């Protein structure tokens, strides 16, 4: 790790911009891979890590769960209403629910959840990591024989992934229920048709791509800000620089993931 860091610093300070850009992405990729491996390693979860993980999981997710659900509910009602009215005006109301499910549940909600978690949790966490490094907190942890990656970084990363998945799952369920009521009203008469439409949309490959997209969204919005916060040495090392770098890179990755999922689903 020390060797890689040295190599990265050398490349970052002496190379041209494209090389520095490639080196930064390589660093982020390597960091993400290492963090995934450490996330699956039981040795990473010491008492301090578990405490921090529980704290970040709860405080990153629970306070925003209600607000985000209400926001998504309103968003769902508006979008569903627009789609239904438009489809009815063109005589295509039989495709309204399928379109709502495909556009809203599958495409928009995971992206919205990822962005919400990024802006609310992971980007501030990345900035906080920069601040901790600046204040020497990591060195303090080292002196106390604690791994700062396991104690401070891994809980934030796992909490970000968890928050993203939880918000996406809850929002998809709420959006699905609201879409049903928006189409059929407060009756159970349309349950068979709704289940049939939902089942037809969520084919095995479609479901797999949806799950993978949501998972990679969560990983992207959690890993990239942390990596930027830990490796912002090519600039002045400020919090704003780390946040901005993380935001730009994260948007780029989200865009690529969304494009890949659309290609997998519809091409």
């Amino acid at each position: 790790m020390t060797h890689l860091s040295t190599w990265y610093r050398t490349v970052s300070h002496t190379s041209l911009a494209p090389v520095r850009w490639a080196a930064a992405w390589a660093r982020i990729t390597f960091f993400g891979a290492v963090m995934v491996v450490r996330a699956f390693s039981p040795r990473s979860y010491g008492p301090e890590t578990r405490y921090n993980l529980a704290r970040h999981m709860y405080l990153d997710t629970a306070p925003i769960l209600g607000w985000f659900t209400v926001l998504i509910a309103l968003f769902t009602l508006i979008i569903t209403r627009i789609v239904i009215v438009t489809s009815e005006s063109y005589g295509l109301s039989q495709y309204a629910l399928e379109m709502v499910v495909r556009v809203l549940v599958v495409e928009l909600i995971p992206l919205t959840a990822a962005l919400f978690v990024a802006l609310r949790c992971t980007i501030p966490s990345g900035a906080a990591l920069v601040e901790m490094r600046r204040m020497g907190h990591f060195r303090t942890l080292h002196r106390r024989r604690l791994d700062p990656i396991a104690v401070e970084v891994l809980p934030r990363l796992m909490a970000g992934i968890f928050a993203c998945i939880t918000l996406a799952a809850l929002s998809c369920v709420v959006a699905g229920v609201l879409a049903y009521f928006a189409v059929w009203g407060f009756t159970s008469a349309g349950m068979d048709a709704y289940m049939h439409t939902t089942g037809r949309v969520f084919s095995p490959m479609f479901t797999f791509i949806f799950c993978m997209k949501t998972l990679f969204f969560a990983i992207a919005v959690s890993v990239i800000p942390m990596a930027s916060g830990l490796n912002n040495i090519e600039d002045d090392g400020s919090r704003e620089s780390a946040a901005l770098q993380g935001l730009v890179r994260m948007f780029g990755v989200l865009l690529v993931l969304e494009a890949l999922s659309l290609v997998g689903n519809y091409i």
Partner: protein
Amino acid sequence: MAETTPPPPSHEPPKPPPKAPETPVSKSEPTGRNVPVRNLELKATMLLAFTVALIVASALFLLRARGYFEPKQQLYLIADNADGVVAGMDLTFSGFAIGTVKKASLNEAGQVRVEVDVIRKDAKWLRTSSVFTLVKNIFGPAQLRAYSGVLTDPPLPDGAERPVLRGDFNEEVGRVIGATKDVLDNLNQITSENSELNRSMANLQSFTQKLQGRRGALHAIFGNEEDARKLVQAVERANVAMAEIQRLAQRGDRFVQHADTRVFGANGIADDTQASMRQLQGLLTDARGSLQRVDAVLKEAQGAASNVREATADLGPLRAEVEANLRKIEDMINDLQRKWPFAKDRKIELP
């Protein structure tokens, strides 16, 4: 990463890590404010359980929506072209999806073999006489439909193989365009200057002009005003005749009323006839008595006649006796005449 410090042994009680320096920057993250959370592990565990339950419930819902928990039976549809057939498309019956296309492949004969999973509880709508169609519309995906005309036929067995009738809009478009071109050619011929339709329209125009004339439709029908005028006069005469007939009918009605009064009224002919009938009945009764008496007289006369017949029968022998006596008397007279003084010279003198 190689310099990672191993975590403390697990037998040590968990202790919170050293707190990060509290700065305005670190306060920007949700956990930045070092606010203690009561029952943190329990709440985190419940949140994790909630998320897992949400995902598991969603997965179960999707599995049920895709019919993984429902028994199915197989149906194989044979088509000549797989265009429009995709895995996952519905087999519908009366607009309700009862099955899903599992896959399409070619069989040994080079035909398309479409494997359909039919939900067993909905398989009752498929009968041995069911017809399957694959319709490809201009909008939307192709639609696979089943039609069961006779629901009393035996149900379709599991693994049955049936042909599917195809209807492709794009294939039909060519034929429709050709037929439309023929129709347009015919229309051009019909609407040309010397066409029958044009002449008919001209005739129709003169007809309508006559209709608008003074004699109206009659002029249009007869073609000249003289005949139309005659028909109008005939109609007027018919009206007069009808009025006369009506007047006669009124008179006949009055006549009938009068006759009714005279015949069926008080002291009318009917009453007189009834009295006459009664008298006639009395006369008939008297006549019957007279006839009975005549019958008795006839019986007596019949007895007298029988007596006369017997007497007549006795007259025969009496007559014979009288004739015999008369013959004897004649013979005696003849004898006397031959005797003297009564004898006569009987000689015949010839001329």
